[in-house]
C-alpha cells in the first residue's frame, strides 16, 4: 500500500531523470540514448498499468490514490491524485509514447537535435497534467508539455514546419495567457487553486461574485478548448499537426485529449450538479461547440487530399464528438465517450504513423497534390537506399530486414485504420460509436425507459455521428483507391522493422479492445459514475493526512539547540 502510494509520483520523476541523463550524454551516443529512452518509456507504461490495476483493485469506496509531494495537507500543499480517469489517460499516454518512440527509432530520431530528451520531457508534461490536482500545477505541466512540443514540432526542420510551428507557438502562448487570467480570477473569487477545495468552495461563493467566477471559468475553458481543438479555436491544429514529422504527430494524437481531459475533470468537479447556482455551467457551450466542430471537420475532410491532413481532421472530428458527449453531463454518455476516446486515440496514432509510410511511396513518384505542403524535408537519409541493403546506426549493411510484403501490410493496416476511424464493424471504433448512440437513447441503461425524450441536441449529435463517419469513409476510401489500387509503376517503400511493430501493436490493441470490450466498458462506466459524484474525490483529497514525522528524528531535532 505505502510503496504503491509513492508510485504515484514515479510517472513524473522517471521521464524527468531520463531527460536529464540524456542532456548529460550530449549529442553523441544516439543509439544508447534511444535504448535508454525506450526502456524508460516502457517502464513508464508499466508503472501506469500498475497504477491502473491498483486503482481498479481498490474497489468503489476508496478508488483514489492521493500523494502529497511536500507532505503538507491538501488545500495548502501540492497534491497528486490518481483516480480511474487519470489512470486510464496515463496508460493511454504510455502506449502512444512507446509506439511513437519505436517508430522514431527507425529513422526520425536522426533528423534533428535532442529528440530523445524532448520526447521524455513531453511525456513528463503529459503524465504530470493527468496526475495533478491543482490548477496552478496544471498550468506548469501544460507549459512543460508545450515547451517540449514546440521543440518536437520543429523536429526535422523545413520551411513549412517552421511556419506552422510559429503559428502553433503564438497560439499556445496566447492560450497560456488566458489560462493564467482564468486561474487568477478563480483564485481571486474563491481563494484556492486546489481542485477539490474549489469543488467545496464554489457552491458557497457569494451571489455578487458569481459572475466573476463564471467569467474566470469561461476564460480558463477557452484556453483548454483551444488545446482540445473546438471550433472556431482549432484553425491552428491542422497545419501544425499535418506538417509535424510522423512520430511527433502520432504523439500529438494524445495532446488534444489533454485538453478534453482537463475540461472533463474541471467541469465535473467545479460545476457538477451539486454545485448550487453554478451547476452544469457552460454545458450547452460544450454540446453546441462540439457539434459545430464535428460538422466543420467532417466537411473539410471531404476536401483533404493528403493523408496527414485527413488524420488531423479526424482528430478534430473525434474531439468534437467527445466534447459534445461530455457536455450532456450524463454518466452513460460519458462512459461511452471514454471508450471512444481510447479507441480513437489508438487508431489516430496508428493512422499518423501509417500516413507517412504510405505517402513515402507516393512522394517517391513525385505525384503532386493540390494541398501538398511545398517543402517538407524527409528524414535526412535517402528513403530509397539500394535494394537489399538497409543501413543501421553504424552505417553497416544489414541484410534481411527488408520486409517484402510491404504494400500488403500497408493496405491491410490502412483498411483497419479506416474501419476504426469511421466506426464500422467489426473493430472497436464501432463499439465506441454504438455505445455513444445507445447511451443517447437509454441514459439509464438498457431496458429502463428514459425519463424525458431525446433533446434536439441529442438528435443532432446522433445525425452528425453517422454523417461524420460517412464523410470520413468517403474521404478515406478515395485516398485508399488512389494510393493502393491505381496501376502505376512505383517502387514499394522499404520499411524498417521498427516502423511496422508500433502499427501492428496499435491495431492489435484495437482488435483486443473489440474482443474484450466488456472490461473496458465496465471500467469507463465506473469512471463516469465516480466523475458524476465529486464528493468522493473531494473527501479523498482533503481527507489525506501528511505522514507524521518519525518519532526518533523528532526527538533528535529537539535535542539540538
Amino acid at each position, binding site marked *: 500500500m505505502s510503496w504503491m502510494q509513492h508510485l504515484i509520483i514515479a510517472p513524473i520523476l522517471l521521464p524527468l531523470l531520463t531527460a536529464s541523463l540524456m542532456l548529460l550524454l550530449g549529442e553523441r551516443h544516439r543509439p544508447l540514448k534511444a535504448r535508454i529512452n525506450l526502456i524508460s518509456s516502457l517502464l513508464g507504461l508499466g508503472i501506469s498499468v500498475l497504477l491502473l490495476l491498483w486503482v481498479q483493485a481498490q474497489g468503489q469506496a476508496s478508488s483514489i490514490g492521493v500523494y502529497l509531494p511536500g507532505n503538507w495537507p491538501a488545500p495548502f500543499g501540492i497534491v497528486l491524485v490518481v483516480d480511474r480517469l487519470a489512470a486510464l489517460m496515463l496508460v493511454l499516454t504510455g502506449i502512444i509514447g512507446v509506439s511513437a518512440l519505436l517508430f522514431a527509432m527507425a529513422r526520425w530520431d536522426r533528423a534533428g537535435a535532442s529528440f530523445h530528451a524532448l520526447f521524455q520531457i513531453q511525456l513528463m508534461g503529459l503524465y504530470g497534467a493527468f496526475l495533478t490536482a491543482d490548477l*496552478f500545477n496544471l498550468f506548469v505541466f501544460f*507549459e512543460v508539455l*508545450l515547451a517540449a512540443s*514546440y521543440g518536437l514540432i520543429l523536429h526535422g526542420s523545413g520551411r513549412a514546419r517552421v*511556419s506552422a510551428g*510559429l503559428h502553433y*507557438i*503564438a497560439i499556445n*502562448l496566447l492560450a497560456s495567457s488566458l489560462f493564467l487570467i482564468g486561474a487568477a480570477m478563480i*483564485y481571486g473569487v474563491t481563494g484556492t487553486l486546489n481542485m477539490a477545495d474549489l469543488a467545496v468552495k464554489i457552491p458557497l461563493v457569494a451571489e455578487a461574485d458569481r459572475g466573476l467566477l463564471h467569467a474566470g471559468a469561461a476564460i480558463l475553458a477557452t484556453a483548454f478548448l483551444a488545446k482540445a481543438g473546438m471550433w472556431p479555436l482549432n484553425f491552428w491544429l491542422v497545419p501544425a499537426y499535418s506538417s509535424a514529422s510522423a512520430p511527433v504527430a502520432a504523439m500529438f494524437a494524445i495532446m488534444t485529449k489533454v485538453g478534453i481531459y482537463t475540461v472533463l475533470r474541471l467541469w465535473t468537479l467545479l460545476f457538477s450538479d451539486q454545485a448550487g447556482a453554478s451547476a452544469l455551467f457552460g454545458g450547452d457551450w460544450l454540446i453546441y461547440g462540439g457539434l459545430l466542430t464535428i460538422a466543420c471537420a467532417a466537411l473539410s475532410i471531404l476536401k483533404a487530399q493528403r493523408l496527414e491532413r485527413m488524420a488531423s481532421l479526424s482528430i478534430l472530428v473525434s474531439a468534437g464528438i467527445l466534447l459534445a458527449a461530455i457536455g450532456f453531463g450524463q454518466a452513460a454518455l460519458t462512459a461511452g465517450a471514454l471508450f471512444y476516446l481510447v479507441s480513437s486515440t489508438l487508431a489516430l496514432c496508428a493512422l499518423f504513423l501509417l500516413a507517412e509510410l504510405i505517402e513515402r511511396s507516393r512522394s517517391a513518384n513525385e505525384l503532386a497534390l493540390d494541398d501538398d505542403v511545398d517543402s517538407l524535408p524527409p528524414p535526412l537519409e535517402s528513403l530509397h537506399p539500394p535494394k537489399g541493403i538497409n543501413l543501421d546506426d553504424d552505417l553497416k549493411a544489414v541484410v534481411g530486414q527488408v520486409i517484402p510484403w510491404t504494400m500488403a501490410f500497408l493496405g491491410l493496416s490502412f483498411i483497419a485504420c479506416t474501419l476504426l476511424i469511421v466506426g464500422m464493424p467489426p473493430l472497436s471504433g464501432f463499439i465506441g460509436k454504438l455505445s455513444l448512440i445507445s447511451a443517447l437513447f437509454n441514459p439509464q441503461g438498457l431496458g429502463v425507459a428514459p425519463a424525458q425524450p431525446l433533446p434536439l441536441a441529442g438528435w443532432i449529435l446522433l445525425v452528425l455521428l453517422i454523417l461524420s463517419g460517412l464523410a470520413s469513409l468517403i474521404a478515406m476510401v478515395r485516398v485508399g483507391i488512389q494510393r493502393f489500387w491505381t496501376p502505376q509503376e512505383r517502387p514499394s517503400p522499404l520499411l524498417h522493422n521498427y516502423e511496422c511493430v508500433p502499427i501492428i501493436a496499435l491495431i492489435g490493441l484495437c482488435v483486443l479492445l473489440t474482443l474484450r470490450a466488456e472490461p473496458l466498458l465496465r471500467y469507463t462506466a465506473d469512471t463516469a459514475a465516480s466523475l458524476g459524484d465529486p464528493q468522493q474525490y473531494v473527501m479523498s483529497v482533503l481527507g489525506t493526512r501528511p505522514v507524521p514525522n518519525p518519532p526518533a528524528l523528532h526527538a533528535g531535532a529537539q535535542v539540538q539547540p
Partner: protein
Amino acid sequence: MEEVIAIAIGVLAASGVWLILRPRTFQVIMGLCLLSYGVNLFIFSMGSLFIGKEPIIKDGVPQDLLHYTDPLPQALVLTAIVISFAMTALFLVVLLASRGLTGTDHVDGREPKE
C-alpha cells in the same frame, strides 16, 4: 491605486492584443511580451493590493489577515514570469529560424500578394 493598476493592465493588454494581430513576427513577439506583463500584473493584483504589508510572518506584527498580504499570488507571478520569459526566448529562436528559411518576417512566411 486600484485605478492606476487597472488602467496599466488595460493599456498593456490592449497594446499586446493589437500587436499580436499585426503581420510582422517582431510585432507579434512584442505583443506577446506586453500581454504577459499585463497578465502578470493581473495575477499580482488578484491577491488584493496593500502598501507596506508583509507576505510572510514577521516578529512583532500581529498574526492576523489585516496585517499581512496574500503571499500566494506573489509566488504564482514569479512562476508565471519565469515561464513566459522562457517561452518568449524560445519564440524568438523560432522567429529567427523562420526569417532565415523564408527570407521574410511576415507571420505566414511569405509576403501577401499585391
